[in-house]
């Protein structure tokens, strides 16, 4: 009998703790499939963040490090700089990557650290129960923006890929979604490219995945996907903002 | 025997160089030495000083309130440290830049117009080395020949002109 669908080797046989309808599971699987397909399981070190994916070290079947909130790119820098032969990826949420860890994100990007960053943007702090994130949309209600995010008070959300695409150290800055099969296929293509870039020594590669948080958004899984299409995609357009190679010319 | 020294002047006069050269020579002579510089914004212009100790014993405190020798290369340094010199100690003043004499009778004061001598002899910037020559003459801290040899050996051979200038400055001070 032919196996047509199986758990990727790069995922452990542990039930994920994510809420129903959360897209973390899909993204975990895509990353694991890419690690399998590129034959990287034995030489990969993953860095888990603080956030909903804090337990990612239990799910990926490679060496894993649990970093402090926001510091994953700095930890990844330490791993990659001491062991350039390893493949190093971080898996971070929006609060982690774009609020508390903004400096680490921007500076590892501008240094052209040859690492792969998977960025889960769901416009909210999931783990702590639905607070305002740096990517929370204008008008979006969260527990810490109960009257809706006001640009006058809380300011505007950050478009991470657009911002990072201006940096010379960035090889790939791309935004994908996993709301439908077509987008899932494209997301995997981009994740694979982000890992391949690292193998090829091209520099900092980030894949931003627009994700859902049905629990904290207060929506059903299908309504959450529709909310993502209706509200997130206009503010955070899908697409590739940079696809080249980090500038490393000293001249 | 223990000799404690404070070198003090303005940034750019080679105060730190003089102190380091004393400490290095002591080390080559197999003595215990410490070199404690002033640091921070003051080293970016303004006053500069350092404390050097050369001793046959283990050195405790690297900072010294009452030095045996004071090398003063500007007036503020003279005013600040002259009262602190240990009774029986010696001060060396660049009399080109310090228009003042010590009123103390319990210390020996040596006045040498080092900056003037340097300028007259094509040795601008070597006033500190001229004073080093004078220290070797007036104290028995180091042998003149040995000190000169160590100083010369620390300069790369490619900088022959520098070697000659240092030698000439030491000699000028020693024989002043």
């Amino acid at each position, binding site marked *: 009998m032919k196996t047509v669908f199986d758990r990727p080797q790069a995922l452990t046989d542990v039930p994920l703790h994510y809420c129903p309808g959360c897209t973390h599971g899909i993204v975990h699987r895509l990353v694991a499939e890419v690690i399998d397909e590129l034959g990287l*399981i*034995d*030489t*990969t*070190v993953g*860095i888990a963040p603080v956030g909903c994916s*804090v*337990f990612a*070290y*239990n799910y990926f*079947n*490679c*060496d*894993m*490090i*649990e*970093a*402090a909130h926001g*510091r994953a790119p*700095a*930890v*990844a*820098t*330490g*791993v*990659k*700089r*001491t*062991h350039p*032969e*390893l493949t190093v990826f971080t898996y971070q949420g929006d609060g982690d990557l774009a609020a508390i860890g903004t*400096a*680490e994100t*921007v*500076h590892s990007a501008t240094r052209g650290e040859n690492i792969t960053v998977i960025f889960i943007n769901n416009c909210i702090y999931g783990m702590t129960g639905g607070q305002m994130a740096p990517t929370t949309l204008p008008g979006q209600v969260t527990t810490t923006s109960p009257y809706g995010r006001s640009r006058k008070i809380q300011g505007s959300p950050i478009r991470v890929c657009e911002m990072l695409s201006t940096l010379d150290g960035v090889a790939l800055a791309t935004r994908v979604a996993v709301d439908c099969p077509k987008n899932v296929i494209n997301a995997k293509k981009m994740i694979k490219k982000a890992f391949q870039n690292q193998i090829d020594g091209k520099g900092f590669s980030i894949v931003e995945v627009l994700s859902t948080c049905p629990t904290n958004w207060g929506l059903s899984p299908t309504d959450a996907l529709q909310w993502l299409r209706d509200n997130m995609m206009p503010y955070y357009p899908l697409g590739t903002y940079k696809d080249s190679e980090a500038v490393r010319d000293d001249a | 025997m223990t000799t404690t020294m404070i070198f003090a002047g303005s940034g750019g006069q080679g105060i730190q160089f003089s102190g*380091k050269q004393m*400490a*290095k020579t002591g*080390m080559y002579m*197999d003595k*215990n*030495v*410490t*070199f*404690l*510089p002033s*640091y*921070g*914004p003051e080293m970016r212009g303004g006053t500069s000083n350092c404390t050097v100790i050369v001793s046959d014993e*283990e*050195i*405790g*405190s*690297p*900072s010294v*309130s009452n030095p045996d020798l004071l090398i003063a290369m500007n007036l503020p340094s003279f005013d600040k440290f002259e009262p602190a010199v240990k009774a029986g100690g010696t001060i060396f003043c660049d009399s080109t830049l310090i228009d003042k004499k010590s009123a103390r009778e319990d210390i020996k004061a040596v006045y040498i117009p080092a900056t003037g001598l340097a300028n007259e002899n094509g040795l601008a910037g070597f006033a500190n080395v001229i004073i080093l020559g004078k220290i070797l003459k007036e104290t028995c801290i180091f042998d003149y020949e040995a000190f000169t040899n160590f100083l010369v050996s620390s300069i790369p051979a490619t900088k022959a002109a520098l070697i000659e200038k240092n030698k000439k400055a030491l000699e000028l001070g020693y024989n002043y």
Partner: protein
Amino acid sequence: MAKKVLMKGNEAIAEAAIASGCLHFFGYPITPQTEISEYMAKRMPKVGGLCLQAESEVAAINMLMGAAATGSRAMTSSSSPGIALKSEGISYIAGCDLPCLIVNVQRGGPGLGGIQPSQSDYYQATRGVGHGDLRLIVLAPSSVQEMASLTAEAFDLADIYRMPAMLLADGALGQMMEPVDFEAFPKRETPEKTWATNGMHGKRAKNIVNSLYIDPNVLENTVRERYERYALLEENEVKYEEYMTDDADIVLVAFGITARICKSAITELREAGIKVGLLRPITLWPFPKKVLGELADKTKAFLSVEMSMGQMVDDVKLAVNGKKPVHFFGRTGGVIPSVEEVVSETKKLAETL
């Protein structure tokens, strides 16, 4: 005779680290420790290593965490306010059981404080360098030679006990120059780092470097296991120097640069007929409690001399445990106590005995 070199304390730390096999340095400039970064930046490329200037102290300590997680010998250095910024990362490193070296060349505080030497991070180093139940190995050099030898020792201890080590120096030691002999310190056997996250390479199951334990019982057990290692360290690795304590009526207790000032003071006091000795803790944690307890049976009084408002004095009191009076003298804010001041304070104390 081995060849000695005249070096700044900061440079001696850097050179000793490289000589100890540390090929990765992550720093951020701050006075009075910047020479460590500068020396590393010059030397590392020549020995095939890396000196990386981070965007902040926070990033530097996390880079160090990543490097240490792979089993590489690595270090960071800073000065007081910078160490405060690193304390988050230090706690994670302790919670992940990662060996590495953190250097603090102390300056005056609190706040921006000043840039002159200080010992007012004693509490920070021995009590409060990060949240949670944790200890650091804290080594306090008092000469440029020890800046080098204790750097080497710190790396070995960190590897053996699988925990972070701190070299607690101060601005005077960092800036002063003394002869150093790099061949004068021994190297210890260190265990293989089987726990490192450096790729499975088909040889083992995955390793996880982590400080998160959601189950309180599991977390408690993890912490207890760590404290068993701390206990071994306390049993085997306490270091101190005793100086003229045999017949001393008064024992000065001082570490780092202050201990040297005390030695000079002792020379003068002995000449004046006052029997004074010195106990110099070299490991501030583990603290030399036992020897202080023993000295308490012999001597009449203790005087803790510090460049702070009195921090180590608490540990001296705990060790002496009320057997004899423990007094304190200190200068702070970047002021180095003078030999004369220590002499006069000790004389005052001697008169009361």
